[in-house]
């Protein structure tokens, strides 16, 4: 017994800790330097050697970026598009996820394969043919069109995550609710929904960010009415470095918060294999 316990308590592993730290710095240091640039004065950005702290710290270039033509407008556009994507992906994806988790039926594994295999197709190839089609149906330069394509990209993830979230609800809980006379709808509201809410919220957040970050489709499908990444992308050539860094930082900062919320569900997003 004593020996087994000793086997579980591991020796401190300095090698692992060192590798862990190096890898963490590899991710964090570049972000930190972009932040320093974003909070530096314009002159400091061209100075040698590069300062390790923004001194004096200023939000001047950040404000300048935000007042650049079209930025606030495109920021608002991005919120609108990402919200539509969130609602549409959930409305289409959650029922499918629920079906996969709760029913046994013919064609289930084929459907799941089809959903997973959408990842083998680069979404960039959807943009041009759909831009063509959207012009024909009278939706040129349209945020709705961008939202529809973003939904096609994000929704397969919603199906996969929600199916694993719904599958996590113990079956006997649902059956118990039925035994006590709850209708299927009531069981869903009182039992299934509270247990699945955090996971489904993470799935929704993920679809929002997928749309928020997407640039290729958004740039192809819009001209004057652009989303934030598309607007930043087309303005990049004419922007001086301080503005670029300020814009880059403002695009990046929400990601740090977002990852806090979805980190527990990452494995459900990207853990599915082909078996």
């Amino acid at each position, binding site marked *: 017994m004593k020996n087994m316990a000793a086997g579980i308590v591991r020796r401190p*592993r300095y090698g692992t800790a060192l590798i*862990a730290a190096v*890898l*963490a710095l*590899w*991710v964090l240091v*570049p*972000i930190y*330097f*972009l932040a320093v640039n974003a909070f530096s004065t314009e002159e400091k950005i061209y100075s040698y*050697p*590069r300062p390790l702290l923004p001194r004096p710290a200023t939000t001047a270039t950040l404000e300048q970026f935000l007042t650049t033509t079209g930025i606030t407008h495109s920021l608002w556009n991005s919120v609108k598009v990402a919200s539509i994507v969130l609602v549409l992906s959930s409305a*289409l994806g959650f*029922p*499918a996820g629920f*079906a996969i988790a*709760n029913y046994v*039926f013919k064609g289930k594994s084929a*459907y799941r394969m089809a*959903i997973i295999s*959408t*990842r083998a*197709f*680069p*979404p*960039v*190839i*959807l*943009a*041009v*043919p*759909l831009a*063509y089609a959207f012009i024909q149906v009278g939706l040129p330069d349209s945020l709705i069109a961008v939202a529809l394509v973003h939904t*096609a990209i994000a*929704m397969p993830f919603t199906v996969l995550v929600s199916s694993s979230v719904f599958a996590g609800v113990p079956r006997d809980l649902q059956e118990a609710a039925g035994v006590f006379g709850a209708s299927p709808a009531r069981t869903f509201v009182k039992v299934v929904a509270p247990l699945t809410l955090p996971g489904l919220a993470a799935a929704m957040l993920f679809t929002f*960010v997928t749309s*928020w970050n*997407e*640039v*290729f489709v958004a740039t*192809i499908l819009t001209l004057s009415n652009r989303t934030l*990444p598309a607007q930043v*992308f087309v303005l990049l050539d004419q922007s001086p*470095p301080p503005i*670029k*860094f300020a814009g*880059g*930082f403002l*695009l*990046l900062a929400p*990601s740090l918060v977002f*990852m806090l919320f979805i980190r527990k569900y*990452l*494995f459900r*997003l*990207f*853990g599915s*294999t*082909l*078996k």
Partner: protein
Amino acid sequence: MKHRAKAPYLLLLPSLAYLVVFFGYPMVSGLGLAITKEEGGFTTEHVRAMLSDFNFGSALTTTVVLIVVLLPLQFVIAMAMAMVVNSRIPGSGALLYIYAIPLAISEIAAGLVWVSLLTESGYVNSLLMHFGILDRPYYFTAAENKKAVVMSVIAAEVWRATSIMMVTLVSGMQSIPNEYNEACEVFGAGPIRRLFKVTLPLLKPSIQVALIIRAVLALQAFAVVSVVGGTGVRTLAGEAYTQYVNTNPRVSSAYAVLILLMALFTVSVIVGLFRTPVEDRA
């Protein structure tokens, strides 16, 4: 009973119909755009326009180089990250968060992160000059330093897209029963031996998916490349974009079809490499 049997299909139908319209249809119509004339009828004109495009060769080469270099390089880094997260050293939860951050960062922001490091007044130049390795700034991202631009793009792409592979690998590792590793330890296998004899073979399905996801991402490399490399480096997705804005949507579609064919080819190569022979299946 009959009603119940229909329920799952009714629940699946909306999502399936949506994917047919917005995923299936554009792939078919994209092929149509690439091989037909404006007024109808088959033509190879757009495909020939793509093949004789001045940037076609370099775009194809860069895209292939990205896949060939990025996949093994990122697999090794992602594997190291995954093993750290899975080792349950103190703070491994925080490490998972840190390693996963780039997953949520947009291509443009990731590109700008690397511009701030690699530009002429950037941190890398500052460091190299501080230690006397350079006496004046090197233009890593200038079009005339072709190899340096490609390497800059590779660095940015490794930084940005290793997270997604790490997550897939960790999730695979978590499904490997601990007993396997413990049994190996009891019989005296060291960490390296355990990695090659237990972890990697059992991780095959996850490695396969990680490589597929990464390869498909590499085939559509666009914004990072454009932000970091400017016009100094071309990719197939970048050319598809350029052709579209230059009002050649059909040549752009030809590029899209080429990207699709390359994706199908790459995915089937990866699937083939990882096929478990029937007699080996557990």
